[in-house]
C-alpha cells in the first residue's frame, strides 16, 4: 500500500519532510511501529498524526494513497 508521509518542525529533521512509503500497514498504529523501527529517535519525541489533513484520533484505518502527516506540538502565534 502506498502512503504519502509528511513531517514538520523538529520531526522533519529526523524523517525528512516528504516520503513516499510503500508499506504493508493497515492503520496508524502499525504505521507508527514501522516509523519507530526506521527512526528510533522518534520514540522520545512528542507528535501527533493527521490523516488527510484531519487530526487522527486513536487508531485510524489507512487506505491506498492516504496522506499521513507527523505533527510536533504546534507553536504558532
Amino acid at each position, binding site marked *: 500500500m502506498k502512503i504519502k508521509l*509528511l513531517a*514538520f*518542525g*523538529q520531526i522533519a529533521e529526523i524523517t525528512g519532510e516528504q516520503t513516499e512509503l510503500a508499506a504493508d500497514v493497515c492503520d496508524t498504529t502499525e504505521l507508527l511501529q514501522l516509523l519507530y523501527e526506521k527512526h528510533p529517535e522518534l520514540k522520545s519525541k512528542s507528535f501527533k498524526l*493527521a490523516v488527510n*489533513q*484531519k487530526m487522527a484520533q486513536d487508531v485510524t484505518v489507512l487506505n491506498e494513497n492516504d496522506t499521513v*502527516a507527523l*505533527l*510536533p*506540538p*504546534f*507553536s*504558532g*502565534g
Partner: protein
Amino acid sequence: METKKKHQVFVEGPIPSGFIAESIEKHSKKLNIGAHSIFLGQVRNDRHENGEVGAIEYTTYHAMAEEVFHHIREETFAKYALTCMHIYHSLGTVQAGEISLFVFTSSAHRADAISACEEIVERIKKEAPVWGKEILTDQKTKWKQNT
C-alpha cells in the same frame, strides 16, 4: 457550482503596523460597528541557555492550516454576533519586536468582539499546524513551545 471564498491568512514575513492601521481605517465605513478587539502576537527576545531569541522562523502544513483556519472562522461567526473577522499569521522569518499574529474582530456590542478575539487566539495556538523555530543570537536554533 458554488465555491467557498478562501481567506488568505498567511503573510510572508512580519505584519507591518501600517497594515494594521489600514485594517482599522477600512472599518470606519461600517457604521453598525461599536467595538473592535485586536490581538497582536509579537516575537519576544526570550533568553535561553544558548543565547537570546533574535527571530522566529515560521513554517506551516499549508493544506491543513487552511482547513483549520476556515473552521475557526465559520465556528466563531456562528457563535458570536460579529460584523467582521480578520486573521493574519506570518510565515518565514520574523525578528524580535516584530508582529507575527494579527487577529481583528468587530461587533455592534463589545462582548462579542472581545470574547471572539480571545477564543480565536486560543484556538490558533492549539489547533493551527504552524511551527516556530527560534533563531538564537549565537546562530543556534530551538523549536518554540506554546504555553
